[in-house]
């Protein structure tokens, strides 16, 4: 991604000089070709070599999660401010009085439930614990029982929050029991974003406190390929593009092709209609969305496709977003 992002590094420069951006795949040389057509006949061509790879498919459906909370991104952004930048994981849960609690999660050593024996270990070396408590009123939706708590990676959470804040979108968190993936969704008229994060499995059934679950090695989270761009969509003259978004429960989840061929043609999505939730790009040039840059005459492409069932790979094995050692 770094190489790809470096092409678009200077937004100011892009806004001033680029008229059109064409992204295509060159199968022969295994290159993704990004061409920036700039003013005064200048054309910048970037060849990014790629490799075929296998991707995990995340099977998830926000609708199947019993609990959800939704808040403006700003509220959640402010909520994570007090945590140290180096903190790896955070626990989110509902506390007494329907307050939403975020607490820093510390990896405990085995047997840490017992108060540590005073001895040579210096207790000042222990990390500071931070907790943020937010009232129910700050949330647009709060549908979860008191006592539920999930633990997930803070770094990724911060990342998606910073995007959501810049786009001024509310964030919905769909979750289930600890161990089941948590799905963070962003929605507006132009885009749908779904971020799937693994949560720690709670092995201790008696833990009452938020986040006192013992350590169970968390699965590297699957973010799918649904990282949405914030760019506005122009319309018309371009080759078809495909957006990889979530699919519904009946299909096999997010399909990602290792290589995507762009077919020039009529401007419609290629994909099974009922199963996908793509953006409606048939509408006229969308007006400016608050918080996003004004519409530019280029489109961004999400690297994925919604496949026709006929072309679907044979029997993909659905993978739940969980540690392969644990039980799903």
């Amino acid at each position, binding site marked *: 991604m770094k190489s790809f992002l470096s092409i678009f590094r200077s937004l100011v420069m892009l806004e001033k000089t680029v008229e059109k951006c064409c992204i295509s795949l060159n199968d022969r040389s295994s290159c993704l070709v990004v061409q920036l057509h700039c003013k005064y006949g200048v054309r910048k061509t970037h060849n990014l070599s790629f490799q075929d790879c296998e991707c995990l498919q995340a099977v998830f459906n926000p609708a199947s999660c019993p609990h959800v909370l939704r808040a403006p991104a700003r509220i959640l952004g*402010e*909520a994570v*401010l*007090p945590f*140290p930048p180096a903190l790896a994981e955070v626990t989110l849960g509902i506390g007494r009085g329907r307050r939403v609690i975020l607490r820093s999660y510390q990896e405990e050593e085995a047997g*840490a439930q017992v*108060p*540590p024996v005073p001895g040579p270990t*210096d*207790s*000042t*070396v*222990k*990390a*500071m*614990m*931070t*907790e*943020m*408590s*937010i*009232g*129910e*009123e*700050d949330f647009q939706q709060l549908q979860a029982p008191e006592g539920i708590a999930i633990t997930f990676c803070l770094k990724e959470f911060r990342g998606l929050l910073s995007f959501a804040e810049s786009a001024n979108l509310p964030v919905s968190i769909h979750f289930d029991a600890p161990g089941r993936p948590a799905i963070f969704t962003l929605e507006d008229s132009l885009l749908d974003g779904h971020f799937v994060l693994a949560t720690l499995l709670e092995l201790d059934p008696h833990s009452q406190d938020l986040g006192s679950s013992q350590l169970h090695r968390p699965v590297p989270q699957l973010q799918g390929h649904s990282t949405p761009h914030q760019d506005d969509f122009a319309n018309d003259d371009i080759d078809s593009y495909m957006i990889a978004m979530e699919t519904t429960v009946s299909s096999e989840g997010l399909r990602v092709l290792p290589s995507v061929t762009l077919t020039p043609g009529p401007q419609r999505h290629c994909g099974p209609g009922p199963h996908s939730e793509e953006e409606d790009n048939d509408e006229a040039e969308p007006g400016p969305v608050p918080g996003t840059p004004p519409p530019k005459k280029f489109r961004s492409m999400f690297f994925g496709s919604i496949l026709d069932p006929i072309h679907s790979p044979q029997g993909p094995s659905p993978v739940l977003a969980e540690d392969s050692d644990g039980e799903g």
Partner: protein
Amino acid sequence: MKFRAKIVDAACLNHFTRVSNMIAKLAKTCTLRISPEKLNFILCDRLVGGGVSMWCELEQENFFSEFQMEGVSAENNAIYLELTSENLSRALKTAQNARTLKIKLTNKHFPCLTVSVELLSMSTSSRIVTHDIPLKVIPRKLWKDFQQPSVPDADVSIYLPVLKTLKSVVEKMKNISNHLVIEANLNGELNLKIETDLVCVTTHFKDLGNPPLASDDASRDRDPAEMAEVHVDIRKLLQFLAGQQTW
């Protein structure tokens, strides 16, 4: 042992935060001494790094609207705690827009200083941030190490120039030499000197003013133009200057 305190005034909170930031810049761990009238931050780095120590005293009623403490025993009505100074300053940093700040001694699996901040919130609901700072209780037999240092009678006392200026001068000098000579006299003159084989650099400060002498001060008989000098380690001096905020 019990301790609870509360700050409601923004200016007091600000001041307390700045003190904590200064401590955090000076040393990794510090000792907090709590007594009925005062709060002390004590650093004694005697063993490590050539003896930089610090004693900071805060009158608790200048900061806290509520302050209750109960020491180890009735005769020894004080609490000595050791904590990582950065933790406290980080906890206080989140209290920049606070309505109230509460500090108390708690025991959550291990002794902690719990800092609880109620934030001003745009919406109706309040937001509360809680920090649990782990600490070590210092046993009574070690308390004698943390007593107020006695400042010996000085030959010369002088008001320092603006610390920012001093810091930038010393910072440049650090590149040339490890040791610095500070000399001052009772005429309000202060010089900073460094000497190497190749170069000598002196920075002069004039008209600084001297604190009034006590009536029994021996230095009354001193020639006001006579300089008293000390050699210090530049890095230690810089460490001290770096910890000072611009007030």
